[in-house]
């Protein structure tokens, strides 16, 4: 099953309340995905600063802070429950190998605007734990998971981020992910789980080196075999794609201030002015995208 949600703000009116809007959407999708939840929220701070979203797992914050300080020039480090947002002007090419040396932590995403938080547990607990209601931003994507093909762990939770400011949430399952994972690994992609969605995220990141997001997803229609509704996020916006059989649901509501997408309308029922929104179902096999 699984529930997916996303909001893209067309105007600045709701930037401060973005976290609160997404939080209610995630909680109302709990019946579709009670095992784990996660969200990616985009907010551009400073142009030169990279943000690294890290799940500490069993490591204590103090220990991590002390050790990382010795190796990286930090601009800021902030704890949010068992996650840490590390800010630095140093490039990912330098920082990523350093983070890899910490065997117990997991890097869940990085980029100049993205922040990702994900954890096992019910969506209502997860949004409370990370105080999602207090977040602001320009666009955000979330996921509630009903685990099917890999274990209920932080690594098995969505969103998956396999490139700078990129992320993917997925409702469905892929059948050719093992083959595709082998191919992508040959080309240098790295994966941290056995999850099918992570492979799709890796596929998108790999293709984005040569194509834009719309072209990438169009190519995905022939390369990704299985059932899916995807929301793929980048620093400038997000795109939505359903497989050609349209097994997995999605509904979009668009007003002059925002575009919202969710698995079911009830996740959007609380959004401002939603009853006057243009509400439609994305057609199968067609890429819809919004961005600046």
């Amino acid at each position, binding site marked *: 099953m699984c529930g997916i949600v996303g909001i893209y703000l067309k105007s600045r009116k709701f930037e401060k309340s973005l976290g609160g809007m997404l939080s209610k959407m995630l909680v109302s999708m709990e019946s579709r995905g009670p095992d784990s939840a996660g969200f990616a929220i985009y907010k551009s701070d400073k142009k030169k600063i990279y943000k690294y979203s890290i799940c500490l797992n069993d490591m204590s914050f103090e220990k991590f802070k002390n050790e990382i300080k010795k190796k990286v020039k930090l601009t800021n480090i902030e704890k949010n429950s068992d996650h840490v947002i590390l800010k630095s002007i140093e490039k990912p090419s330098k920082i990523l190998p350093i983070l890899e040396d910490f065997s117990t932590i997991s890097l869940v995403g990085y980029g100049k605007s993205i922040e990702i938080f994900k954890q096992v547990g019910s969506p209502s607990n997860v949004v409370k734990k990370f105080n999602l209601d207090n977040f602001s931003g320009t666009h955000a994507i979330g996921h509630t998971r009903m685990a099917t093909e890999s274990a209920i762990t932080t690594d098995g939770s969505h969103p998956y981020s396999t490139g700078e400011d990129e992320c993917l949430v997925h409702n469905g399952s892929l059948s050719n992910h093992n083959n595709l994972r082998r191919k992508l690994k040959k080309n240098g992609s790295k994966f941290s789980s056995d999850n099918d969605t992570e492979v799709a995220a890796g596929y998108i990141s790999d293709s984005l080196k040569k194509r834009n997001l719309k072209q990438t997803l169009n190519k995905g229609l022939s390369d990704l075999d299985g059932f899916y509704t995807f929301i793929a996020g980048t620093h400038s916006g997000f795109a939505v794609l359903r497989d050609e059989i349209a097994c997995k649901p999605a509904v979009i509501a668009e007003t002059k201030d925002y575009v919202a997408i969710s698995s079911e309308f009830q996740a*959007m029922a609380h959004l401002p002015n939603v*009853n006057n929104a243009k509400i439609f*179902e994305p*057609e199968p096999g067609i890429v819809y995208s919004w961005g600046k």
Partner: protein
Amino acid sequence: MILDLKKLKLRSVNEKLQNIDRKKNKRDFVISNPEGNHAVCAGLTENIDVTIKGHVGYYCAGMNQNANIIVDGNVGTGVAENMMSGKVHVKGNASQSAGATAHGGTLIIDGDASSRCGISMKGIDIIVKGSVGHMSAFMAQSGNLVVCGDAGEALGDSLYETDIYVKGKVKSLGADCEEKKMSKKHKTKLKELLKRAGSNIKPEQFKRYGSARKLYNFNIDNVSNY
């Protein structure tokens, strides 16, 4: 009588509508704030009027008998699924599998219906004023599907004896579905169906599709079509 789903539980609203006291004269109900809830007005059996003010979720008016239900909004998957009789009128768009497996009654959709509209329908009349998505009327057994807009891929795949009328373009026909002659009998029937939906489009503007009846019995020459 107004039933506000912000104040009342869905289950209590459905229970109330499912257990109408025939001696009392209350036959008119309005449901406000449906907020995308699932199974609103499922399993009604009495001849009552219910207007739902807003968008609803899955299986709205499922298994309906006798009731006249109007949805002033959009509906999710499986509106009027397995309806036996009565009337369901959706003023917005419908998601997939509208009128699935329904045995009777009338389903009117003012907007578009997405994929698998009328899948395995068994006697219901469905009138869609907009377009329908792919695999509509898949394995449809009897009844009528009227589409005033366009139809998506594989219309009427593995069709039995449902009559399909489409005014616009058909992207492709499914296995064993073919265009049929529109006789006087069919024009009269279509006119009556359109009238039921408050439409005065001329039946002559439609094309009729039905089963070629080649897949009814196993035939080795058709093996690739099964």
